[in-house]
């Protein structure tokens, strides 16, 4: 309270760095805030996000699996039904977590908790906030993926160490969904519109070759499913789980790299609409 300001203190030099109006290279402050807030309040949310795919795996994999028996895996070898759906459930969990964090969570903090309003009155730009929030979502996703992969190992569903790659790859899948989700949230104004997000996610979860192979569909529907991101995530993780790679692996991975690039571009272009009005 003691500083004596002189009038010269009131002249600023403008930065000419690209994106200077939107980004102050301080996303780590947003991340630090998120970690501190999680530590002090959100423990239960973390736990519930971990259990959801595990419960699916137990009920469908073990329960339904007892009826189904072994199925044909990605490399043509028979594998247990639980081993067949486990990587798919991991992809679904990566998608759900990332989409939840980048849509509902952002929408709530924006419009109700007014958290971003406070952040954006500091040196932070909207891109710092977006990067920080996406990073937090991915960190959470990585924890869930590691937990789920551990459960798979305990259930004896892992046959190769290559399967551990599912953890980093599911973070890439989550990144694709999170970057896109945040861009889409910038178009949302009401809770009713936010419900559309669930309306898209649920059928994608059920029909993206999650519980049975794509070949059950007629050709036209197969093409449609193959255009959607979750199918690529399911196939990618399923291939990794048994270390069976093909040129299609690169296509699946490329799909997500492209999705991340387009999603981040969309989010950056929509930042003013998302955070500044």
């Amino acid at each position, binding site marked *: 309270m003691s500083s004596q300001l002189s009038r010269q203190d009131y002249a600023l030099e*403008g930065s000419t760095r690209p994106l*200077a*109006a939107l980004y102050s290279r301080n996303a780590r*402050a947003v991340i630090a805030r998120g970690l501190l807030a999680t530590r002090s309040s959100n423990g239960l949310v973390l736990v519930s996000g971990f259990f959801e795919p595990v419960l699916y795996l137990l009920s469908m994999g073990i329960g339904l699996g007892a009826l189904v028996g072994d199925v044909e895996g990605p490399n043509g070898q028979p594998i247990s039904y639980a081993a067949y759906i486990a990587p798919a459930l991991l992809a679904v969990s990566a998608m759900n977590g990332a989409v939840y964090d980048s849509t509902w969570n952002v929408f709530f903090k924006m419009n109700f*908790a007014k958290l971003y309003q406070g952040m954006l009155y500091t040196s932070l730009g909207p891109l710092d906030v977006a990067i920080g929030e996406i990073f937090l979502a991915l960190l959470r996703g990585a924890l869930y993926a590691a937990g789920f992969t551990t459960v798979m190992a305990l259930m004896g569903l892992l046959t190769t160490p290559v399967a551990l790659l599912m953890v980093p790859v599911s973070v890439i899948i989550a990144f694709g969904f999170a970057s896109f989700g945040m861009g889409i949230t910038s178009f949302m104004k009401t809770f009713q519109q936010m419900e559309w997000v669930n309306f898209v996610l649920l059928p994608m979860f059920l029909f993206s070759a999650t519980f049975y192979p794509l070949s059950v569909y007629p050709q036209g529907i197969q093409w449609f499913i193959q255009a959607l991101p979750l199918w690529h995530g399911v196939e990618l993780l399923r291939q990794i789980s048994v270390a069976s790679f093909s040129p299609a692996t690169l296509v699946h991975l490329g799909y997500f790299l492209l999705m991340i690039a387009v999603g981040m571009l969309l989010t950056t272009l929509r930042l003013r609409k998302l955070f500044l009005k």
Partner: protein
Amino acid sequence: MPLSDPPVISAHRLSKHYGDFHAVDGISFDVPAGESFGLLGPNGAGKSTTMRMIGGVSQRTSGELTIMGLDPEEHGPEVRAHLGVVPQQDNLDEELRVRDNLLVYGRYFGLPMSYLRPKADELLEFAQLTEKSGAKVDALSGGMKRRLTIARSLINEPKILLLDEPTTGLDPQARHVLWDRLFRLKESGVTLILTTHYMDEAEQLCDRLVVVDKGRIMAEGSPAQLIRDHSTREVLELRFGSERNTTVAAELQGIGERLEPLPDRVLIYARDGEEALEQVISRGLKPVTSLVRRSSLEDVFLRLTGRSLID
């Protein structure tokens, strides 16, 4: 103002439209360094929108705006590094504890923890919240939350402090404490930009102010100057009982410079209130009560922005 001494805030024909609604409609003003500048106006006059444009979190529709020589839309993070903001509604981080609110907010400015730890303690002291340092935010009273918001706005030692209705909802003690703190900041050279609809607050804190209504500037000057320009030196308040006030008004014509009948009283604006009262009595009128007082900013405000209720 000499050329070597540019204004820290300069707005020229600044406008913000939401569709057909002109929230801010071509306002111009300059604020020199160290001044305490007030935006006065009824609800919906465009004060908060103006504040948001200064902070670079709302994009203007047209006009020019520079803060310390920079456009806040082009250089938001740099401009805001020197800004402290107290929004109209407290937006404290409810998920963090009291002291963490200050530390985390300081980190948003990229400030190091070695600076922030002692600074946070100093500000908790300043806001009289030292004992609440480990409390949850939602356990604080309204006045405490307000003080914490103000403490938070000072974490980066801002050169310009934006205060959007800083004392709304506070009790008189809390308001006086706050005024004292703001006055000290002003003395240390901080430029204060303040919106308020409390006239006593404006008279206490503002060197200069603009009265805003419907997005336009209605008047500009120091509190004393505004009173001089838009009101008389004194006001005579007469009460004849609520039925008679309006009928009596006709018989009071010609006394003072201006007459305003209200449902509960009649106001006579005059240079000399006692003399006006003598004239009233000499016309044989007997008010139930009479009061001579100095003209206040409130008289100016109500004259310029009207008495009808604005929502």
